[in-house]
């Protein structure tokens, strides 16, 4: 089968919903099969995957770290929706400055951008898959 360009959207909160775990296993399997991951877009509570302040129990998975490392290894584009992130308190240094907040919490390998990035994934990718709540 020829390589397919995939867009992935995650709308379920980490730990609270299985969505980000299922998406992670799906993306790993897709990469192993030689498909291209055009972008992973985090929306709704999915944006909470992108905070570096989580401290999960030591005997459980670290969802943020898993994504950050997978992104590093495969040059994945992990995009956190700015509107959903503002509502939920996920900020990068630039956003924190603009909003007058005294700190940021975005995790390595994630970038904050607009909803247009999800629409673009829908247009450019051959298939878009949503993992949600």
């Amino acid at each position, binding site marked *: *089968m020829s390589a397919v360009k995939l867009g992935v959207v995650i709308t379920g909160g980490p730990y609270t919903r299985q969505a980000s775990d299922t998406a992670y296993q799906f993306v790993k*399997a*897709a990469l*192993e099969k030689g498909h291209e991951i055009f972008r992973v877009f985090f929306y709704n509570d999915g944006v909470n995957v992108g905070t570096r302040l989580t401290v999960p129990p030591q005997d459980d998975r670290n969802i943020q770290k898993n994504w950050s490392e997978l992104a590093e290894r495969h040059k994945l584009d992990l995009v956190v929706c700015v509107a959903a992130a503002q509502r939920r308190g996920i900020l990068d240094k630039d956003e924190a400055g603009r909003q007058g907040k005294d700190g940021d919490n975005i995790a390595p390998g994630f970038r904050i951008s607009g909803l247009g990035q999800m629409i673009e994934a829908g247009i450019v990718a051959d*298939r878009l898959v949503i*993992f949600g*709540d």
Partner: protein
Amino acid sequence: MPTLHMVNKSPFEDNALQSCLGHVLKGDAVLLIEDGVYGALAGSAVAGMLGQQNGAVSLYALGPDLAARGLSEKPLLGGVDVIDYGGFVDLVTTLDRSQSWL
């Protein structure tokens, strides 16, 4: 132009599977993932919902989610194929679109 329908909710708690099955077309595929895999159990009160699809749609359940929930040894509805994440990727890439019934 078949569609891959994904259902991730338990059919005992949520109407997603029922609504999905009300909108599938002949030739489509329905994939049960996460808590959706409970819908694949044989002999349950909701088994009739999927059972009456009668081969018009292809039925799949994600094996890793069945195993996590202790259902690997339980009898499943006839016609349900158990697949892994690789099989999931194959369904997404070979069917024309995917629709998540959240």
